[in-house]
């Protein structure tokens, strides 16, 4: 039932990708996303694909897991594609009443759709190879400079960690309550939307009460162990940059360099090639 939903998409593994410092991975993803906006033509995408393929191969995450990340945004991709295809002015290829597809529109549509696809594939690699806890550790560490401006970075990271930690617990709780109410004849599957929304009350009320109970227990347990926020707190697994992290940095720098060089020197080449082919 509800427990079958796979949550967080971490794919357990022991590849170098899994072991790289999470801070580095977060920065790398940001740079990667920036690179997607530096790229202005299909030649640039060749560089992106090579980079992405290399990283994917190193991570050893099965391709179907990575592609699964595209499913939720499929509608957005189709929407972007259609809109770009129909709204761009230029040399008309096909026309019907007010709708028209132009050569430039088609080019833009494919280009934008691919940009979205690469965006998702690249960033899902981050969550696939990084445990949620490490991710929040990384975010906390990266936000450290903002601490001087009064941002409670440790507390924010702790909140994120706790939220992530309790998602499976709450799902299990929901599953239990659903079953119990079903045993009392509750019906969640039939009726109008209004009826179905009302049918959720017997689940939501106990779930909220349960969530507060869990929160209270956790707060007590943390206080009993003298938790008092981030001031002077050390970590069991402190983040330290290692040799493989240096290698990763070099890789990112090279990738970014090629993307920029391509943008400067090879822009427009793909248009010429397309023109030659068609």
């Amino acid at each position: 039932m509800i427990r079958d939903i796979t949550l967080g998409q971490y794919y357990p593994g022991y590849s170098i990708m899994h072991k790289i410092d999470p801070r580095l991975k977060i920065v790398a993803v940001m740079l990667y996303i920036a690179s997607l906006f530096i790229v202005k033509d299909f030649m640039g995408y060749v560089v992106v694909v090579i980079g992405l393929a290399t990283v994917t191969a190193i991570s050893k995450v099965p391709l179907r897991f990575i592609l699964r990340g595209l499913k939720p945004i499929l509608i957005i991709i189709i929407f972007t594609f259609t809109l770009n295809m129909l709204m761009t002015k230029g040399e008309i290829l096909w026309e019907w009443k007010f709708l028209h597809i132009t050569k430039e529109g088609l080019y833009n549509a494919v280009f934008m759709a691919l940009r979205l696809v690469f965006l998702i594939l690249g960033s899902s690699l981050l969550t696939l190879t990084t445990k949620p806890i490490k991710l929040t550790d990384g975010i906390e560490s990266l936000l450290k400079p903002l601490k001087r401006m009064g941002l409670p970075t440790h507390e924010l990271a702790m909140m994120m960690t706790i939220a992530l930690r309790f998602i499976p617990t709450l799902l299990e709780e929901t599953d239990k309550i659903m079953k119990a109410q079903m045993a009392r004849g509750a019906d969640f599957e039939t009726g109008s939307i209004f009826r179905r929304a009302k049918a959720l009350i017997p689940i939501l009320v106990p779930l909220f009460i349960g969530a507060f109970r869990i929160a209270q227990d956790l707060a007590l347990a943390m206080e009993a162990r003298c938790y008092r926020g981030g001031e002077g707190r050390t970590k069991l697994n402190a983040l330290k940059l290692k040799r493989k992290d240096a290698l990763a940095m070099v890789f990112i720098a090279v990738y970014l360099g090629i993307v920029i060089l391509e943008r400067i020197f090879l822009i427009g080449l793909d248009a010429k090639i397309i023109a030659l082919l068609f």
Partner: protein
Amino acid sequence: MSITVENLTHIYNKGLAYETIALEDVSFTVPSGEFIAIIGHTGSGKSTLIQHLNGILKPTSGEISIGDIKITDKRVKMVDIRKRVGLVFQYPEYQLFEETVYQDISFGPKNLGLPTEEVDRRIRKSMQLVGLDFEEFAERSPFELSGGQKRRVAIAGVIAMEPEVLILDEPTAGLDPKSHQDILNMVEEVHRETKNTIVLVSHNMNDVAERADRVFIMDSGKLVKSGRPQEVFREREFLSHIGLGVPQTTEVAALLSERGFQVPEILLRADDLISFLAERLPAGGV
């Protein structure tokens, strides 16, 4: 109403790398009106088994009939199953949600589509059965009650559906000794009064020994033993091998036998054992 389970197998996450066999080829019959107990330690498949009995889980293979209805048949309406089989989950007080005890107990009967007067009659009847005074509790919020009282309300919510088969999954878990006894006595009382079939899931041998007509022992998804408590608890070594004990009285009787003090038949009730020993011991104590 009788229960018939034939070759029931349930596999979680079938076809995936982490598939686990929760139930393997379980078969048994329970005649109408019998009080049975299912015993097994955590993860032995007890909970999975009982969730099949009212259609919440569907078997991977095998068939289940309640009375003359085959509930594993796809055409069977869920409401027909739930009318017959009531299931009280572990920690049932966590499913309470209404503003008053009265409204909460009415949830089940209302879902059965009963008229208001009938719902009202059933609420009064079930509150009386679980030992909650109607005048005192009906209009109170279930959330301000004590743990034991909350549990009674939750159990009343299932009893009010007047199921002919009542299944309870560890109804005494986490209660203090007094509430523990009260709840068990209440289950016995309900059984006596409504003549329904009872399936009590437990891992406490003492609870089961004195009350159940028959005991089913589950171990790693299989039904490994069944029979009258006297028969089943005779097998002390086997039970301890699968991580279960025997009732305290049986244990005492067995230890006495080992030291050459003949206790003729297996004695399950503490009172029986005490009076038996009292007869044989020299006056003035040991």
